[in-house]
């Protein structure tokens, strides 16, 4: 799977020498905040080759409890290692204080995974800062975050949403797991620590799947750019699922597990998704028919989606099969992320994200066309310098352009489908969905036949 941009980027590297190609990708996993550190700690329990785990928190006590060696107390001067008290502004300030330190952590790293729980102070505030700093130091940034439980209340959710918007502006890709979905995986008797453990293990599993997807060169390759193209500009929550199975009919089992995965709402998510990335990893004994047995049902479930597929051979997985699936659906009115409105200074993008939205890549492509001598320069985001304006006006503009305001209007008026059709007597029965169409709705409406 090669995107045109990837080949463009690949060509100059080859000419500069094979060393750059052979270089091992260095990866850092950063847990930010309490939840992030827990997830990172969980992830670190299984050692992955060439992955360093770093914990960042404002709460020195919580940090000291972790057995991992690499940790850093953020904003020691400001918070005295006592946490942020759930205030994202303090978390952001603490991270900004230590920006130089964070930059030195990120230096020389190719890919940085950020794990954070949004809604609190440190994760919500510091993670976007870390993402920005990491991007500035030339790394690709993937954030994997959780959203708070519903019972945690509205303010926390709004904080989390605001943090998510900032993170999306700063990071290359954001995968997001609403904690509320963990309820589906836990029953009445599951203890709190077990439930949170499930969340941690989900994040860790997903991360491992993404790690495999990026680092292992596949027979059918999927790379970071593909991942970005699935997550960028789409709905905030990108449900992901990882399933693993072994034995004789592992392909059937793995599909069954995948469709039963609670994060995919029993496969419902796939029906609605418009971009799906499937990464398949197996031992050397992976057969073509197995690939087919897995992909055929997935393809059938999401016929209209943009499907990216990759296969990786991993010696360690001999006899087993692991599938990572990331699905996302386009949200109406969010075709292009508003990067212009982000408060962070537009970072110089050394490594171009492949999935810059077409409106922005188009001019640069046209320029290349007009001037053939123009060397392949990084497709910059052609953003005009911000006009002079007062602090107050800036703030106003910012709230208008970023998610906060959109959230507000979303609360006032829900997004409605184009035409509300009451399904009459089929309202309460199981919908008949074939080829992505709900056949219970009148045919003439679906076909757009007008009755005057």
């Amino acid at each position: 799977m090669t995107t045109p941009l990837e080949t463009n980027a690949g060509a100059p590297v080859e000419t500069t020498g094979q060393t750059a190609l052979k270089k091992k990708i260095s990866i850092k996993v950063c847990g930010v905040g309490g939840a992030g550190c827990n997830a990172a700690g969980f992830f670190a329990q299984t050692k992955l080759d060439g992955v360093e785990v770093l914990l960042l928190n404002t709460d020195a006590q919580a940090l000291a409890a972790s057995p991992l060696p690499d940790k850093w107390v953020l904003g020691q001067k400001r918070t005295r290692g006592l946490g942020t008290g759930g205030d994202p502004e303090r978390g952001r300030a603490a991270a900004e204080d230590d920006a130089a330190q964070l930059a030195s952590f990120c230096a020389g790293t190719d890919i940085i995974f950020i794990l954070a729980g949004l809604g609190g102070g440190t994760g919500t505030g510091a993670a976007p800062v870390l993402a920005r700093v990491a991007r500035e130091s030339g790394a690709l940034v993937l954030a994997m975050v959780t959203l708070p439980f519903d019972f945690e209340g509205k303010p926390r959710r709004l904080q989390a949403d605001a943090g998510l918007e900032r993170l999306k502006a700063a990071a290359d890709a954001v995968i997001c797991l609403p904690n509320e979905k963990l309820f589906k995986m836990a029953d009445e008797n599951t203890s709190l620590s077990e439930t949170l453990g499930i969340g941690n293990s989900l994040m860790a599993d997903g991360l491992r799947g993404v790690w495999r997807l990026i680092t292992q060169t596949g027979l059918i390759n999927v790379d970071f750019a593909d991942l970005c193209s699935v997550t960028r500009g789409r709905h905030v929550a990108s449900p992901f699922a990882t399933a693993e199975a072994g034995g004789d009919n592992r392909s059937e089992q793995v599909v069954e597990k995948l469709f039963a995965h609670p994060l995919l709402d029993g496969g419902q998510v796939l029906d609605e998704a418009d971009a799906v990335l499937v990464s398949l990893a197996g031992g050397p004994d992976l057969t073509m028919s197995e690939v087919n047995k897995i992909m055929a049902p997935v393809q059938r479930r999401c016929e209209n989606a943009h499907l990216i597929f990759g296969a990786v051979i991993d010696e360690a997985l001999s006899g087993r099969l692991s599938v990572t699936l990331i699905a996302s659906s386009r949200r109406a009115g969010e075709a292009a992320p508003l990067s212009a409105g982000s408060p962070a200074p537009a970072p110089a993008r050394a490594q171009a994200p492949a999935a810059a939205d077409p409106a922005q890549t188009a001019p640069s492509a046209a320029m290349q066309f007009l001037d053939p001598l123009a060397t392949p320069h990084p497709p910059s985001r052609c953003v005009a310098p911000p006009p002079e304006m007062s602090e107050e006006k800036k703030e106003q503009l910012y709230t208008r352009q970023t998610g906060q305001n959109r959230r507000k209007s979303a609360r006032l008026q829900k997004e409605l489908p184009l035409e509300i059709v009451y399904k009459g007597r089929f309202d309460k029965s199981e919908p008949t969905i074939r080829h992505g169409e709900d056949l219970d709705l009148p045919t003439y409406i679906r076909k757009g036949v007008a009755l005057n």
Partner: protein
Amino acid sequence: MFDPPLIVGLEIGTSKICVVVGEINAAGALNIIGIGQAFSHGVRKGEIAEPALAEEDVRNAIVDAEQMANVEIRSVYLGVTGNHIRGFSNHGVHPVVSADREITEEDVQDVIKNAKAINLPVENSIIHAIRQHFQVDAQTGILNPVGMFGAKLEVDVHVVHGHVNRLKNSLAVVKGLQLNVETVVFNGLASALALLSNEQKELGSLVIDMGGGTTDYAVYSDGIIKHTGVLAVGGDHVSNDLSFGLKVPLGRAEQLKLDHASAVVQPEVKGKTVELPGQMGLPSKTINLEHLHRITSLRLAEIFEQIEREIAPLGWLERLRAGVFLCGGGARIPHIHTLAENIFQLPAFPGKTNSISGLKSALDQPEFATAIGLVRFGSLQQKRKSNGGMIGSLKQTLAEIFKR
């Protein structure tokens, strides 16, 4: 004990419950002696939604049939359908192990067992496993390989499977009435059994049973079943569309469908209207006939298109030389055959239950095809049982004697 054995087919449909009583007469032929029917209230899309209502309706239908045939019904062949039912073909292989390479009945049983061993989700169970053609070494298209010689025996089996719990729902309703269920049969298969003669099966036919809640279909070619399926869209959807599009209550939409529907929009209906008389507080209303036909036609065309879309890639459409046979209530809609011919590009006929004698009134109605097919299925099975039973018991006795 001395009465000829009764064979009763029970179809719990979405719009009505249908019971057909048949008996095997002295000549060994199947004879339909009674029918019973009742409106159905507790069924949605072919599956039980409200067991209490469904049970009441089934009781009424059974009583109706008992009175007409003057018999007491103890056991039934139960027809099932629903969105959860799927059909697909599977292949089984078995090496012939005996020294002289002669294929025995055991080999045939083994190879069928192999073909049935498919990987179904745990909650699904097999309703039918119908053997298609056998293959001995490279020789294909064999119907009965016993006595032939070969090293490898292969068989294709068509497996119809469904969700256990959802099947149990209809079973529970029947068992609640103290009736014994001989076996469950997929409705699509039963309809095909009722409509098709051996010649039509040989030539290749597609049977579409357009019921109230579901449309069941079966493809026969070369004398064997090739494909089955269920589309959970039926006459109810037409009524629902009409009710929505013409802005009339569901009950009146249903009546409009029965009185005025057409599967094809003809040029002469342009501008025509029908008057819906006011009754029971509902005001009278003028309905545009063209709209009515257009809504109906689009929905029915879509049903056929969905079926075509499913079987065309499998390559069966070219082999259906006998054509398309329609049954179920949907087959009564005027011009439905023209529509089917347009979409499948094959001749389409109203299905007729020819090969069974008995009540003319029952045999001519397309709605009864499934229930008659269930009786037919029962008669075939009883024949097999009595044949196999006698030989089987003889074998057993002999074996027991020799063991001593």
